[in-house]
């Protein structure tokens, strides 16, 4: 299936609509619009994947390492997931496990996002079938980026520790155990986001200097 310019504009429009629904906190007739946003996003991703998989590899695509493509996809999805989690974080303050319907909704949408990420990564990888996708240079870049990710995680955890350790108790009413647990998950996501951003930055710098 080939998408024309109009088709790509429609897919892009659908993705923007999906993100608006996903990040908005609106409810219609008691239904959370986040689920609809996730469905539209998955549909737009599926359409884009089919269009991309039927397009022959161009010079630009061949000039970018498979591991760099994966890093870009990871950065995009982790960016959306982290922003989504951050926007929905206030919902966690009013709930506690195990009765947390709003938090469960957020978790379900994050899992759907993860599934879309895995599918997209697999489809992109299939375009390099029979070729080496990761080699020693990629592993060196991954190792260097992992250092950045670890630093991001450490700074985030230290920030949370300072926040909880030095704030007066009356200003920490919002910090329920459930909220703190989710903030720790956010710290993990932040670490991964920094790692993906560092990976992409290293590939882009290396590619530009090699040209």
């Amino acid at each position, binding site marked *: 299936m080939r998408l024309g310019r109009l088709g790509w504009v429609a897919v892009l429009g659908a993705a923007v609509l999906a993100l608006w629904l996903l990040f908005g906190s609106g409810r219609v007739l008691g239904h959370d619009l986040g689920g609809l946003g996730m469905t539209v996003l998955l549909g737009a991703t599926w359409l884009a994947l089919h269009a991309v998989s039927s397009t022959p590899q161009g010079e630009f695509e061949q*000039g970018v*390492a498979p591991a760099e493509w994966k890093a870009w996809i990871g950065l995009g999805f982790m960016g959306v997931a982290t922003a989504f989690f951050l926007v929905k974080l206030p919902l966690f303050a009013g709930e506690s496990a195990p009765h947390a319907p709003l938090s469960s909704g957020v978790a379900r949408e994050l899992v759907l996002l993860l599934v879309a990420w895995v599918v997209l990564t697999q489809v992109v990888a299939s375009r390099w079938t029979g070729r*080496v996708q990761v080699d020693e*240079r990629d592993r060196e870049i991954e190792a260097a980026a992992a250092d950045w990710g670890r630093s991001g995680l450490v700074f985030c955890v230290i920030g949370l520790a300072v926040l909880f350790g030095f704030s007066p108790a009356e200003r920490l009413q919002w910090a329920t155990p459930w909220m703190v647990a989710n903030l720790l998950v956010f710290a993990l996501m932040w670490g991964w986001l920094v790692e993906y951003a560092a990976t992409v930055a*290293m590939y882009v710098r*290396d590619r530009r*200097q*090699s040209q």
Partner: protein
Amino acid sequence: MTGTPVGNDIRRLRFERGEMTQQALADACQVTRQTIIALEAGRYAPSLELAFRIARAFGVGVEDVFRWEGA
């Protein structure tokens, strides 16, 4: 990754071997084409294993492909 003191003649050797493409060399050495590009640009120093693979792909010794350019 910054510049490396390990120089190489990969580009010359490719052209002496009937203009072997970067992709063909990458496939022969089990690396990505981007690694060959980085090597030719002097932006990456290969592991000993990869250096041997590249030399073997050209049918020459390691020192015929790589040389030390550091101080």
